């Protein structure tokens, strides 16, 4: 049975260098946890998108990367990434999860793309208060 991991790291996102750092750390952690290269790359891409969203829409925020274990399946390990900001929040969550929807002039594929790369995806946002996105992937 794989060794349980006990990882929890918090990153502050305030500029584009932070994006590069946090996704690199995420890739390292994923490797250490036993994810294959493709899944490591998925995880790094998801972290990059979440960090970029923080910068673009809230200017600053945090990302926590931690190891998790599936409750209903003992020994099943995974990685959880929580992106938190106190920006203006998302007014139209349904739309934000549609391909091609953007309020910033980007490609509009960030959130839906991130959702496809990960196994679990949860978004909570209060308009005017902030946004919290939680994603998970199992080894």
């Amino acid at each position, binding site marked *: 049975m794989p060794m349980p991991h006990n990882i929890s790291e918090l990153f502050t996102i305030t500029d584009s260098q932070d994006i590069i750092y946090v996704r690199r750390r995420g890739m390292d952690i994923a490797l250490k946890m036993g994810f294959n290269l*493709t899944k490591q*790359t998925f995880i790094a*891409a998801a972290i990059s998108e979440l960090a970029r969203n923080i910068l673009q829409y809230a200017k600053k925020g945090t990302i926590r990367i931690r190891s998790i274990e599936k409750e209903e399946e003992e020994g099943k390990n995974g990685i959880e990434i929580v992106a938190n900001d106190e920006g203006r929040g998302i007014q139209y969550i349904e739309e934000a999860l549609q391909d091609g929807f953007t309020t910033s002039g980007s490609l509009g594929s960030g959130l839906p793309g991130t959702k496809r790369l990960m196994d679990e995806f949860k978004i909570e946002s209060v308009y005017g208060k902030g946004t919290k996105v939680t994603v998970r992937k199992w080894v």
Partner: protein
Amino acid sequence: MSLECGISIQKIEDYLIASIQTTLHDEAAEQFQNDLLVHLKKTHAKGVVIDVSVVDVVDSFLGRILIEVAAMVKLAGASVVVVGIQPAVAITIVEFGMQLKGVELAMNLETGLELLKKQLKSEDM
């Protein structure tokens, strides 16, 4: 140009080879687009190969940069091809749903240069 900012641009024959590193951040990416166009004008290069073989992380930002650079180089009258996408990065691009519209792709530097030369030949005819 220094590798620290994530890019290097070299000239081989009539072509520019621009290498992108994973450490390319947003400000450097804008600088890269600008520098590449300046290089193109100065050297009268006929084509550009964008080498991403050392890039092991991709996101929608990098996708957008590639699409924009390809469009700009074409507007400047040269051909462009992106080479060396790693398998895991290619899978990520597809799963993510990113569409690299208007971006020509080739396996490696060699096949990329061949593609550009072929394109130029067919334009001459």
